């Protein structure tokens, strides 16, 4: 069953080594920093997004052609979403939210191409993105509002005795934000890819069983097609949800008392 093992698609391997941190120069000591397949696809993702956004406004016209229209639609979509979640002061985070959305969307979609590596299927990548979001929220909140940022945990209009219960609950729910943000994206993409690999593995297994096997293999093949369509939808929806949640958390930083 080695060929249809669903975990093999997530293995990270080095393309070329860069340098080693720590250790004493002998083989196997210290941490090797290498350019991995994950790094390659992250670079490809960023290059694709930049290329698209740079090429689209060439020959900019009042009545846009297809490329310009698609870039404008993407821009408007994220701008409207951010403005409605975080208000006009939140619009200063538009480059950040747009970059996050574009990176997650293109990284997820690249994962759907056969033989490409899915960058967001590793918890460390999604956790890095989520920690980036929470760090921006905390740093901006404290820079802008000082200690009054902590009023986020004590919503307005609550009688004092209940406050002793509500504040710890609010703190715990705030601390769970990076965890849920990262695990949501990671879990959706990982689970989708493993399920797809398992079902398409059934096609291979049944196809090895003669003529009846080939007929029977049509069922997991149909399921595989349906799952691929679902995976494209999940790729887009998870990118959108990541961006919407980022906007909501930024709204908490910009207007702390909800």
């Amino acid at each position: 069953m080695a060929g249809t093992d669903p975990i093999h698609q997530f293995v990270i391997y080095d393309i070329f080594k860069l340098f080693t941190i720590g250790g004493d120069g002998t083989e196997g000591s210290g941490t090797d920093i290498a350019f991995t397949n994950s790094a390659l696809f992250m670079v490809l993702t960023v290059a694709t997004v930049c290329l698209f956004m740079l090429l689209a406004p060439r020959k900019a016209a009042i009545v846009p052609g297809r490329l310009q229209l698609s870039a404008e639609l993407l821009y408007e979509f994220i701008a409207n979403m951010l403005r409605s979640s975080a208000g006009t002061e939140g619009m200063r985070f538009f480059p950040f939210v747009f970059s996050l959305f574009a990176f997650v969307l293109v990284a997820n979609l690249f994962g759907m191409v056969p033989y490409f590596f899915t960058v967001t299927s590793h918890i460390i990548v999604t956790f890095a993105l989520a920690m980036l979001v929470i760090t921006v929220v905390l740093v901006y909140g404290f820079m802008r509002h000082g200690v009054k940022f902590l009023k986020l945990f004590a919503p307005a209009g609550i009688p004092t005795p209940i406050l002793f219960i509500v504040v710890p609950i609010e703190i715990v729910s705030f601390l769970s934000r990076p965890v849920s943000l990262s695990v949501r994206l990671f879990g959706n993409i990982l689970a989708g890819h493993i399920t797809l690999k398992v079902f398409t593995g059934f096609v291979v297994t049944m196809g090895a069983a003669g003529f009846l096997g080939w007929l029977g293999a049509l069922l997991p093949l149909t399921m595989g097609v349906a799952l691929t369509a679902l995976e494209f939808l999940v790729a887009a929806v998870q990118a959108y949800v990541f961006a919407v949640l980022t906007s909501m958390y930024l709204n908490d930083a910009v207007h702390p008392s909800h």
Partner: protein
Amino acid sequence: MDPEAAKYIGAGIATLGMAGAALGVSSIFSNFLTGALRNPSAAPSQVGNLIFGFAVTEALGIFSFLVALILLFVV
């Protein structure tokens, strides 16, 4: 009990969590449909909230699937 067997049993039990997620997702869509059939002109403006609510609820089902996958392939 042999750890291999415990892994498989644990993975099976972990999938029961998806029942709650399924109820949650169906609740979101059924409420959206109820509202949309009463006020069809307001429905398109709420599709964004629909997709967002669906994704956040589905995440919890995926978390339980993730526990099952971790038990099967990582532990």
